[in-house]
């Protein structure tokens, strides 16, 4: 039902471009710091663990491949999505849920406005745009952090690091990563909006629905993540 209403509002051009830009700012620009911090830490941890396991057993330049492939295929899109579940998804559910229980949603209907066109569609469009961009940024920053960490702790220079990275690199990997990001970018706002729209029961209801929404979004991200390899990496 929500998907149909969103499509109808897009076809009828009932969506405010100003609101889409506003949502891109809130969901995208304001999320950059937390996404980048997470990506830096993910890159460092991958590099450190790789170093611990490979030293003395496998040529260290393989580290480049491990860090790059881990960040591109898995950590970049999944960690970004999980961070955004908390940063964006919870916010959307709580915001729309509060509007629902305080009759603001009814007020929109009463003045002849379509809450889906006003509230849902801009958030979904913004999600599909910003999550891949944030994922691409996280991937780049995560790789750089991993390389710097490898250099500082293992003495692995950037030439050796990227030599190793190229050995196992496929261009498809980046397409795979961004495809995941687009799907996650769709799933987070769709689930959070759906939960927000069905909130009831006052302030306690908003709390309950937001918690359920975060759990549901996180599980959905992880399940979708598990479905991607058999579908796109065969």
């Amino acid at each position, binding site marked *: 039902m929500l998907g149909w209403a969103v499509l109808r509002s897009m076809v009828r051009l009932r969506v405010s471009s100003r609101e889409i830009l506003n949502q891109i700012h809130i969901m995208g620009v304001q999320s950059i710091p937390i996404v980048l911090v997470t990506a830096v830490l993910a890159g460092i941890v991958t590099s450190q663990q790789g170093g611990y396991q490979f030293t003395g057993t496998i040529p260290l330049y393989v580290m480049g491949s491990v860090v790059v492939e881990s960040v591109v295929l898995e950590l970049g899109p999944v960690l970004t999505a999980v961070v955004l579940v908390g940063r964006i998804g919870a916010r959307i559910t709580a915001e729309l849920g*509060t*509007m629902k229980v*305080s*009759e*603001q949603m*009814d*007020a*929109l*209907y*009463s*003045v*002849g*406005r379509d809450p889906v066109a006003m509230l849902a569609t801009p958030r979904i469009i913004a999600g599909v745009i910003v999550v891949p961009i944030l994922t691409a940024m996280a991937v780049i920053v995560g790789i750089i952090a991993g390389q710097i960490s490898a250099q500082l702790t293992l003495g692995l220079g950037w030439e050796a690091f990227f030599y190793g990275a190229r050995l196992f690199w496929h261009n498809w990997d980046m397409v795979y990563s961004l495809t995941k990001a687009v799907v996650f970018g769709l799933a987070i706002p769709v689930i959070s909006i759906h939960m927000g729209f069905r909130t009831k029961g006052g302030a306690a209801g908003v709390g309950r629905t937001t918690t359920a929404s975060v759990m549901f979004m996180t599980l959905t991200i992880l399940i979708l993540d598990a479905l991607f390899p058999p579908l796109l990496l065969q």
Partner: protein
Amino acid sequence: MIRFRRIHKAFDEPVLTGVDLVVREGEMFGLFGPSGTGKSVLLKTTIGLIVPDRGDVLLDGESVYFGDPGFLDRVRRRIGYVFQHAALFDSMSVFENVCMGIAEDDLRRMKRKEACGRAWEALELVNLEPRQVLNKLPAELSGGMKKRVGIARAIVGRPDILLWDEPTTGLDPVNTAAVERLIDRLSGELEVTSMIVTHDIEGGLIMCDRVAMLSAGTLQFCGTPEDFRKSTDPVVRAFADRAGAEAALDNQLKVI
């Protein structure tokens, strides 16, 4: 004219069970009743905020639920709805809130100056100083001011019907009297049909041309305020006496 025809609505339990009611054109109609008897539910069925399980609402003879699918949209443009707790949009300024009451297509055609003029005029009609409140957010307003902004939003679209859902709930006696005077004045000045759900029986009896009382989901009484005062129906009497005593106590507590 609004005609409610055999309205049935149940949530977990039945709330309305076959309510028949007519609100005549140009009159101010009051709806009383104990809490939980479906007054607000009945009001909300008028503009499709709650869809009845059975029955229909007719506006000037045209069915809201069984007629032209686009009719509900047109109905919403003709009706101004004042919510119990104002239901202002938190993230919008007073100006944006009031402008939401203007039909979307009209608002797109309007220049900002014209929209500003309409909002200004509506705020003045509800006794607010536009210069002081126009750029404020709802969180910066008092309860009484929020109600007035909610009323301004309902009237800015120049509706011919106004629906008031407990507009004085939560206000102190001074603000209650002020809002009631405002409702009375606006209904006269704007020449609209008004339907008001209220717990303030005395205020309602003074303002309204006709009143009705719901009890346990059915229509218990419908007539003039004079008939209501003289009614010997034990249910009506019990409600009126209890409501009067509660109002007196409430007023005393608020003064203390």
